[in-house]
């Protein structure tokens, strides 16, 4: 397996540590004037998302993680897996529940997602930052109430629950920020 020397460390580099794939978030040189040099890194576990601080002796090598981030179109879910298609090779990949996780709440057919492949299999899914989804259930809208700032729960076609302003109706499409899970605006019918 290919490896990286600590002097190649930079943010975004994918490495293996204790059997798990990690991405380097930050890399800092630590070196006392007369002492040993170290690379102090913040690394994110690509399976769990947890960020940890680790230090490597400068000059040490670590294994590279076979991890790629690929833009893929979300095709459909079959009840067990979620299916994606690589936009350049048209190759299809099935992601299981562990890989998809909470991203399932924002997956709309034909949207382009970032699929992280680890040893060729989907490890995690990053939905687009903004998605447009239809409200399938919410309390009736209050006519003319566009200014009071009240909110109510709305259930979307994907099963996600988003807090929306009172004037938004069932059957309407809304734009949602998937990073915060918050309502952004009404959207035109797609």
């Amino acid at each position, binding site marked *: 397996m290919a490896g990286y020397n600590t002097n190649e460390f930079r943010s975004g580099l994918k490495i293996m540590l204790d059997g798990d794939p990690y991405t380097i978030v930050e890399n*800092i*040189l630590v*070196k006392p*004037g*007369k*002492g*040993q040099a170290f690379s102090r890194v913040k690394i994110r576990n690509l399976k769990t998302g947890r960020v*940890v601080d680790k230090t490597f002796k400068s000059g040490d090598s670590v294994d590279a993680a076979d991890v790629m981030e690929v833009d893929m179109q979300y095709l459909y879910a079959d009840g067990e897996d979620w299916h994606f298609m690589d936009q350049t090779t048209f190759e299809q990949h099935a992601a299981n529940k562990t890989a998809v996780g909470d991203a399932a709440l924002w997956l709309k057919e034909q949207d382009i997602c970032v699929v992280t492949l680890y040893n060729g299999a989907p490890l995690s899914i990053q939905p687009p930052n903004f998605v447009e989804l239809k409200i399938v259930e919410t309390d009736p809208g209050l006519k003319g109430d566009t200014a009071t700032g009240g909110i109510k729960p709305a259930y979307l076609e994907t099963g996600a629950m988003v807090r929306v302003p009172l004037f938004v109706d069932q059957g309407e499409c809304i734009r949602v920020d998937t990073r915060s899970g918050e309502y952004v605006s009404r959207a035109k019918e797609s």
Partner: protein
Amino acid sequence: MFESALIENLKLRAELLASTRSFFMQRSVLEVETPVLGATAVTDPNIQSFAVTDKNNLTRYLQSSPEFFMKRLLVAGAPDIYQITKAFRESEAGQRHNPEFTLIEWYRGQFNLSQISQESAELVQQLLRLREINLPIQRISYRCACQQTLGCDLIEQSLSALVEIATEHGLVAAEKLPRAALYDFIFDQAVLARLAKDVIHIVEYYPAEQASLAQISATDSQLAERFEVFAGGFELANGFLELRDAVEQRQRFQQDLKTRAEQGSPAVAIDEAFLSALEQGLPACAGVALGLDRVQLLAAGLDSLDQLLPFPWSAL
């Protein structure tokens, strides 16, 4: 960099240099210059020097510190001396490291460790006052600093206990490192990180494994007559009660060469001119090197040398 920030940095630098010169003039310490290109490189396993080769294949080394030349001046009869010089260390580039940097280095005859460390901290104090930063000076032994922050005396720990402490603090493959490197990591990660940032700390009496060019303490063979100065969470100065024994110095150089070979660092020649000077007799003295760029970071309230240096390494 905004133009005003650039000019501000240049002015502060000029003030720091002037204030340093007045500090030493008041104390009758003589300013000297020594070669930046030397015939040999230091043997220190943790310092790699740039080599410069001319068209006749003559190799010279950019000096990583003016120490050996300055000690030769002391042997030749120079009084107390100081120097403000560029020093060079290969591969040391980062937030607070630039491969080319500025050292203030000085030697005081008959000073002991507490006198030279006090003077170092006082110079830092004077320089920071140029920007109305008033930091108190606190002195602590290496042992006590570890005891207070880690709850144990590092020097008394077995190698396996040091490996365990280092691993707990996130060091990967700690079991492959020698004591000195484990001390470096644990001190930086667990001790220095917990020392108050708004204090000039003198940490003195380092483990004997980290003696470098310092004498071993006459009263405790586990300790070296070495100190460092820290402020703002980082290292500013490193000093010694200087080793004067040519035989012991040669042994340390040879040990360095062995370590360099083991770790695959480039081989270097021992500085025989320096060793002959020691054989002639270095007067009793204490010396210290202070990083001027780091002091300026503190004075300017900046985080990174990229914000400070007009031409940082990453953007030459």
